[in-house]
């Protein structure tokens, strides 16, 4: 190679921040450029429904330190929407007509909230950006009644922040139990009771028939009746931002299709994070919306471009913090209906773990307040150590001793 290659990251979010750090740590020497359409550099998106929604502090919010960027030849261009990648001329074209040289490109455009068709106005909210979160925070105040549509992670975090700020909250979902799609009904039920204890109201198990926003409020109608709230927060998932990929001629399905190394159908273009439908060596093609996955995929690309081809093959991991309760999941995307579920501890008391077993091997785990079980689960899955359901359920068995027994056998 005669000259160092230039890498351009499209989208200034979690992937971008993790990628430039990983590339430099692994010794990649070429210029690194980040092009983002938001007015700021990358920030901690999870805080938007947690710390930042509860209060306006900036502590820990920013992901890249300008001084570090300056010292490491990382150029950040904010307010610069990208039109498309032109691999043939090794360049990235900006919406304003400009063009940036790019030997390698990492597409990291994330996703945008799904909207309710035809429902809009000042009282309707979604949360993806800092501006969204700041606008919503002003509405979460005593005397206001806030509706939340969708009882997944985002919706339940918003509910927790809203009651924390003294607002009244009612959460709607067609599912009968909150979070059940994410972490299973047992943990969902326990966390639902926690929310109810804090005053959150639930309207579950009923499809939404209509949502009508007027100048005076938002009326949500289900089979059980109509309900009016001051503001409605729509938390019904995201759509991947695939436009740049489509305009660049990349293969796109449910996200930009990438191989195990996160390479798209064009070898000089990678994609990672919420926008990428990754061919995971363990689970097959999956598009996952977790910070840790975005960071790990970015780290793998960082190593690859620094000269050590690396795949992302770990089980997907995520967390959510609600009130002072910590919930984590590992490998949940890979669960099959006939996997055996085993509970450890007391889930109803918000202190336990659920494991999923297949043929004597662990495939997944979800926990409330027992993150240490997840660390061990990660090793059990990674090393494919056989475990029995009785051992996992028995609190007399220390989980980390299941790892030791392997070492003795090995």
């Amino acid at each position, binding site marked *: 190679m005669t000259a160092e290659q230039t890498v351009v990251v499209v989208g200034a979010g979690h992937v971008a921040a993790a990628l430039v750090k990983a590339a430099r740590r692994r010794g990649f020497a070429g210029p690194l450029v980040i092009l983002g359409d938001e007015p700021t550099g990358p920030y901690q998106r999870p805080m938007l429904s947690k710390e930042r929604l509860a209060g306006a502090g900036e*502590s*820990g919010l920013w992901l890249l330190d300008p001084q570090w960027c300056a010292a490491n030849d990382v150029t950040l261009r904010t307010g610069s929407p990208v039109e498309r990648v032109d691999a043939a001329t090794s360049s990235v074209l900006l919406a304003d007509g400009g063009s940036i040289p790019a030997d390698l490109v990492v597409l990291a455009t994330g996703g945008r909230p799904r909207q309710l068709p035809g429902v809009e106005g000042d009282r309707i909210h979604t949360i993806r950006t800092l501006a969204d979160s700041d606008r919503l925070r002003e509405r979460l105040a005593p005397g206001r009644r806030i509706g939340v549509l969708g009882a997944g992670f985002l919706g339940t975090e918003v509910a927790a922040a809203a009651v924390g700020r003294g607002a009244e909250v009612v959460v709607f979902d067609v599912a009968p139990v909150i979070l059940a799609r994410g972490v299973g009904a047992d943990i969902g039920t326990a966390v639902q009771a926690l929310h109810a204890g804090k005053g959150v109201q639930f309207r579950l198990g009923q499809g939404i028939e209509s949502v009508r926003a007027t100048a005076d409020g938002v009326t949500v109608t289900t089979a059980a009746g109509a309900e009016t709230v001051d503001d409605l927060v729509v938390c019904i998932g995201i759509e991947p931002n695939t436009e740049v990929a489509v305009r660049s001629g990349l293969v796109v399905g449910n996200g930009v299709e990438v191989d195990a190394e996160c390479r798209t159908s064009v070898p000089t273009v990678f994609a990672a994070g919420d926008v990428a439908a990754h061919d995971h060596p363990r689970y097959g093609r999956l598009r996952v919306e977790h910070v840790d996955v975005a*960071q790990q995929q970015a780290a793998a690309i960082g190593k690859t471009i620094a000269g050590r081809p690396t795949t992302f093959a770990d089980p997907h991991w995520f967390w959510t913090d609600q009130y002072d309760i*910590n919930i984590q999941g590992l490998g949940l995307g890979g669960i099959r209906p006939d996997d055996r579920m085993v509970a450890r501890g007391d889930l109803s008391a918000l202190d336990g773990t659920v494991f999923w077993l297949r043929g004597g091997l662990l495939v997944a785990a979800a926990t409330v307040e*027992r993150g*240490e079980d997840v660390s061990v689960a990660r090793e059990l899955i990674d090393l494919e150590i056989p475990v029995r359901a009785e051992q996992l359920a028995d609190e007399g068995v220390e989980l980390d001793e299941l790892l030791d027994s392997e070492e003795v056998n090995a």
Partner: protein
Amino acid sequence: MSEWVHVAELKELTRRKKKQVIVDGRPVALFLIDGEVFALDDVCVHKERFLTKGTILDGQVICPGHQWKFDPRSGRPEDQPGCQATWPVQVSDSGAVLVGTVPATPRESSGLEDTPDVAAAGSERP
């Protein structure tokens, strides 16, 4: 000046490899890793969970809160901001574990603590 306090016996660490002790009013985590005893702040620089509630894997300490991996020697988390204070440790011939009352390396904030003052003072979670 640093003094040494006798906080535990080595044999208390042989089975579970970890133990919380209090040094100067501050929770300190002892870990026995590959035959060596390490002492770090027990309160995680991220969000104040206890490292002693976590696990030891491949010589690293994994915090139960959000799975940050700490190097027990430096107190640094892998790829994350901040640093746990580390404390000087001596193990006597009779197996007494002594910890110095002044950190060997200081705590550095991660900027992400829920209650930075509490974490810095090292008091327990309420």
